[in-house]
């Protein structure tokens, strides 16, 4: 029974990580950009909730999503000129923005962490067939599934989705055919920011303390998930995020509390093994032959 309950909690965490992985994957697809600063979008959402406390909850939700999208657009503007720069340059640029935003948060809010107090009612547990499950767990799974479904419908069934996929597969050819580079990149950034906004809402209920590293702590395991799943494909990347989320959740609950400090050690050990065995990612099939010389 306790195992089932742990599993459900782990799936909820997996759903959030999957959303984060999908957001990272969207930006990577159109810009070949590994955006470490994506975590700060989640942090920005949490602080917006904090700053709007006292307002009606729907106002806080709208405000958080709006502010996150605005920051997403700012990141778009910041990173766009680097589109043709080397991967190293882009990586260092996103790192810089990430640390800059974290340090601004330290300056403004301090490192101690402040209680967000967003929809605490969802932290209450409900009894389902002997299982004690928190509402936020159910909501996370539901919203995660809905958003993942909606995003994949958008990508596979709409014209802008087709253009985003084409840009991710072969940006130059897409532009030759008339796909507007700027439209595609902005759409991907807005989409990714909205996903970050929703993740930030869910996390603010589960981990109700806003800190400067609120989002950064999520982004690292999600990035691990993307690499494990397969970086340059959205579905494998998302599955990877989900898998790492579930694994983190399960290990976190199953390990005796004294051993929990080894959680990340165990996680990264698995990552190294996966990368040694399947360097292209766990969920990527049928790759071309690797040239050895």
């Amino acid at each position, binding site marked *: 029974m306790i195992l089932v309950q742990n599993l459900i909690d782990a799936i909820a965490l997996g759903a959030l990580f999957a959303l984060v992985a999908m957001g990272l994957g969207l930006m990577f697809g159109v810009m070949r950009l590994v955006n470490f600063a994506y975590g700060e979008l989640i942090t920005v959402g949490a602080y917006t909730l904090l700053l709007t406390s006292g307002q009606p909850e729907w106002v806080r939700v709208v405000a958080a999503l709006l502010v996150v999208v605005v920051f997403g657009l700012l990141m778009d503007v910041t990173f766009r000129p680097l589109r043709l720069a080397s991967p190293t340059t882009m990586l260092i640029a996103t790192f810089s923005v990430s640390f800059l935003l974290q340090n601004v948060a330290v300056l403004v809010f301090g490192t101690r962490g402040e209680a967000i107090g967003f929809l605490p009612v969802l932290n209450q547990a409900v009894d389902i067939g002997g299982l004690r499950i928190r509402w936020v767990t159910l909501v996370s799974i539901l919203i995660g599934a809905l958003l993942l479904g909606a995003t994949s419908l958008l990508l596979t069934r709409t*014209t802008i989705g087709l253009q985003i996929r084409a840009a991710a597969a072969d940006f130059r050819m897409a532009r030759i*055919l008339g*796909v507007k580079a700027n439209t595609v990149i902005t759409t991907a950034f807005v989409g990714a920011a909205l996903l970050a906004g929703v993740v930030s809402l869910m996390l603010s209920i589960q981990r109700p303390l806003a800190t400067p590293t609120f989002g950064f702590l999520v982004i690292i395991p999600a990035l691990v998930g993307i690499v494990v799943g397969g970086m340059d494909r959205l579905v494998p990347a998302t599955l990877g995020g989900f898998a790492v989320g579930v694994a983190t959740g399960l290990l976190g609950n199953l390990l005796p509390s004294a051993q929990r400090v080894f959680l990340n050690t165990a996680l990264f050990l698995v990552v190294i093994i996966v990368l040694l065995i399947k360097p292209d990612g766990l969920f990527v099939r049928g790759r071309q032959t690797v040239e050895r010389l």
Partner: protein
Amino acid sequence: MSGPVARPILRVSDLEVRYGGVPAVRGFGFEVYPGEVLGLIGPNGAGKTTTLFAIMGILEPSGGEIEFEGSVINRLPPERIARLGIAMVPEGRRIFSEFTVEENVRLGLMGRADAGGEADDLDWVYSMFPIIDEFRSRTAGQLSGGQQQQLAIARALVSRPRLLLLDEPTLGLAPVIVDTLFEALGQVRGRGVSMVLVEQRAQLAVQFADRTIVMRDGELVTSLEPSDASDADRLANAYFGS
């Protein structure tokens, strides 16, 4: 079709394109008239693909001018140039192999200047390439090389371009498929679409084109007429230099 009185649809003058500091095209120029098929041949590294890339807006020229229907397009991005009415079938086809055939064709619609007539052009393209029509829902990567080339041309044509740039469309294809391809290109010409055809099968290009120019080391060497196609010596001289 072509004539000294007609205004060219494409005018390239004094084109210069550099990779780093190295010039790949230097002082190259030519004109394409409405409805004309211009062959562009020359040995590897002559600058043919570079020239097409410059016209399409993928590479920015370091000098010279590219004029399409009277307006200078040098500094426009590819997506704008596509909307002006230029389409390209790049070397190696560059189809989206993980997408369906139909999705590939639909991507060609992005370069249309107007939404009107989409259905007509789709019909036209699908009727020109029945095999593409038949395999609409297949993954493009499953098609044979010849079919993929047809798909690449179909994808370029649904945007209803007035100028089609073709880079080595027959590369790696069996002779019988080359025939099919040129039959289709004949239909495209019948619609009045102008073309610039880069082709390593020199004889084929010279035969098919209204006029063929030869490029070597980034420069224009000579110009050939269809009647030169049967003159092997003249072709070889033009190509490799005498």
